[in-house]
């Protein structure tokens, strides 16, 4: 099972964090800090797995990948295949790329809700839900359409709010 999915940048600023187990806010912050510490001090071309020393016992593993300015980290237990998670991560990033057209760190900051929606289509309660990129994109598009169709009345101001917020 996937315990947590974290995305932070090269400086350790968390951008997206999703925990599938109940932790207190403090523990969450601590986990993010420690994870960043562990991951960031590793060289570029070493392996993508880190085991044995993490949150909640030795069963957990960190599987991470470094894309440009962002670290994507999945914390999983032993029931997941490492390489499969690595592939899942790739699907996630490619999906983000499709939805945002050339995704960059700024997109994740200003559209956190969208990122969470995409993630929700892929991973649910710590389990892999869907791995087919087309399917995920279709779902997201359908959601967007729904949103737009409903936005008719109250949509416009809501949109502006979001925009101001992101600045």
């Amino acid at each position: 099972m996937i315990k947590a999915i974290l995305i932070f940048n090269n400086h350790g600023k968390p951008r997206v964090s999703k925990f599938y187990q109940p932790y207190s806010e403090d523990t969450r912050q601590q986990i993010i800090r420690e994870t960043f510490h562990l991951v960031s001090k590793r060289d570029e071309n070493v392996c993508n797995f880190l085991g044995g020393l993490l949150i909640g016992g030795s069963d957990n593993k960190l599987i991470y990948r470094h894309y440009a300015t962002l670290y994507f980290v999945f914390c999983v237990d032993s029931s997941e295949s490492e390489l499969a998670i690595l592939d899942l991560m790739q699907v996630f990033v490619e999906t983000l790329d499709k939805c945002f057209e050339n995704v960059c760190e700024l997109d994740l900051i200003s559209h956190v809700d969208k990122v969470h929606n995409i993630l929700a289509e892929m991973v649910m309660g710590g389990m892999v839900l869907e791995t087919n990129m087309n399917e995920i994109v279709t779902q997201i598009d359908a959601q967007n359409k729904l949103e737009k169709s409903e936005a008719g009345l109250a949509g416009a101001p809501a949109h502006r709010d979001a925009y101001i917020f992101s600045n």
Partner: protein
Amino acid sequence: MEAVNLLSSNRYTEKQIGYLFISVLVNSNSELIRLINNAIKNDLASRNPTFMGLALHCIANVGSREMAEAFAGEIPKILVAGDTMDSVKQSAALCLLRLYRTSPDLVPMGDWTSRVVHLLNDQHLGVVTAATSLITTLAQKNPEEFKTSVSLAVSRLSRIVTSASTDLQDYTYYFVPAPWLSVKLLRLLQCYPPPEDPAVRGRLTECLETILNKAQEPPKSKKVQHSNAKNAVLFEAISLIIHHDSEPSLLVRACGQLGQFLQHRETNLRYLALESMCALAGSEFSHDAVKTHIDTVINALKTERDVSVRQRAVDLLYAMCDRSNAQQIVAEMLSYLETADYSIREEIVLKVAILAEKYAVDYTWYVDTILNLIRIAGDYVSEEVWYRVIQIVINRDDVQGYAAKTVFEALQAPACHENLVKVGGYILGEFGNLIAGDPRSSPLIQFHLLHSKFHLCSVPTRALLLSTYIKFVNLFPEVKTTIQDVLRSDSQLKNADVELQQRAVEYLRLSTVASTDILATVLEEMPPFPERESSILAKLKKKKGPNTVTDLEEAKRERSADVNGGPEPAPASAASTPSPSADLLGLGAAPPAPAGPPPSSGGLLVDVFSDSPSAVAPLAPGSEDNFARFVCKNNGVLFENQLLQIGLKSEFRQNLGRMFIFYGNKTSTQFLNFTPTLICSDDLQMNLSLQTKPVDPTVDGGAQVQQVVNIECVSDFTEAPVLNIQFRYGGTFQNVSVKLPITLNKFFQPTEMASQDFFQRWKQLSNPQQEVQNIFKAKHPMDTEITKAKIIGFGSALLEEVDPNPANFVGAGIIHTRTTQIGCLLRLEPNLQAQMYRLTLRTSKETVSQRLCELLSVFLHLCCVSSFPCCK
């Protein structure tokens, strides 16, 4: 409140925001939870797939117990309903999985399970993937119910594997057909033994071969994602092969494949190959094949830049080590130790120490290795390691001289580690005489050498050295005066540390007062240590927790039990459960006190006079013994004194039981304020539920009252409840406590199984924590028939003709509790010559194994022929 209103909106955006809010902010605010649950319920019933999806997501993401209570019955229906949309089915499967993980007791098994299995045939691969995850988890707990999934999974897998990569369109990922689903299916198959049906088995073997073949094909794409996905499937296939451990040809091929990966450019693959190979080394078919890669692995240890990979290399070396390559491997590990990362040094030290001991053909080599170990990484050598050297040196006459010579030489180094001083001090104190003939290591030189280190050492080491000195006094009368002078000096006699001061004073007196004979007796050479499980091994186990490496370790230990050339482990008093407290001098190794009467001989008397009704009397003497007798009988007299008799009658079925307690007044006077109470510790209260009604507070002379206790076993437990009875008898206050014999084995149901099944299961439970073993001496003549009856009386089924050795007893059963059922396997191996029993218990739960083993050993101990007929 606003959020809950949003939930009931019909607009997608509003609903979505509402759900988002709840998944972030929900806590167990009971008022809101009910409203939220209501909204979710409406959405689930709405037949609008989007809304249903949102609701299911919400349940899965919150995943709390309350949610499980509310929806665990609902979701299976959605999952198997014919008209549910694919995407909703997918969500429902995972949602159910999530609820099952948080509160397995709340998810009812039912007819839906068989229909879930058929989801493996679904058209939609997303649904199949989700269903496979669900079934894998469920099957781990209820293997029987999902047995049919094996053949379905195999046929599904073979369809995927043999399909052209374009067949599955959307689910083809970088030219690999449905990698995630393949991985999941292979995981599911790892829950089961190899399929029995030859057709299915053949098909599976074919699949696995195809997967291995594909690895050899040229890649269809240069992208790393292509190879990743392909290898994910391949690694999973290899772990399935290892799990089945039955097809030698596949195992060897798997090993060859992993060997290729060991030299692969990708660090990830090297890491995973090392990890899988570790598991492979444990199989007897492929152990030799793994060994051929030793040079590559050693090379990895030396050149690999990544510490995680090096760590795996160490693990693998440890796993592949055997007598033929031990010297090489230990030498390599030692040289690696000099540059190893600090975080893994201690573990390497332990591993080296274990390997050196286990595969030592020549004990001089062993001593050299350990001394080297202390020299290179003294700080990381834990107490256990040097205790163990000393145990071995003392137990083996042939190395004592060599050991003394070697430590003497090692101590000559200007700076040596304190651990070396400890070993040196101990060994010279015992065996210094063996090298005293050489003028270069005369007694005086030995003493001065040790004493030169004295001031640099910590207090415990100094204390040890003082003991060495007094031993010298005995060994070499010629240095007596020198040593007495040292002991007499102010820095010893007036040392600020009490321990040192006391030793100095006592040793000084001893050396002046006692005659040579007495000295020789008091300071005699230490007797050999009883063989016991290496404390180092225990330490490594403790450090690593459940881990494949230690699994292997166990397996290998069994195979090579007598590698040391020592006598077959015959632990007279050895507690073979890992006891990290096993200390050097063997002083702390007293066997666990037999369950005798607790030290409360005067307890009853005192209590007769004490008048505080709140105090609970200590257990009545002898009640422990009686308690053990009740381990496998249900009726009888539990307690009796001049006033009161307590009788029991009980029956148990599955996880429920009922016990009638009869209190008999043996006097002719009334008992007043008669109050029996059941006392459970907090721990016990959670695991065992007892319900009873108060009894009449007066018991007439000669009368008997009855109390009924309804018992339910919620989860496994170890303690027993205590029955405390307080009453007034002719003006004095009486207080009696007895243990109520409600033990875990009462909820044992026998299971019959065939030999093959039994060993299959036995193998599955090979985790070191699942197994508990006890070796003990038979107190009574070893009668086969009686032992058989005892095992049946204990509650398990006695399986005949299962064990290849007809003298062994094998049993199986299931412990029923409200939450789970725990399968238990037991094996009792009598050794008629030594009059010993070895009892091994394997269950899926550590605490259960532990407790059952205790109960059964106590019972086997106790039950003599006369008390025996009680167990039918």
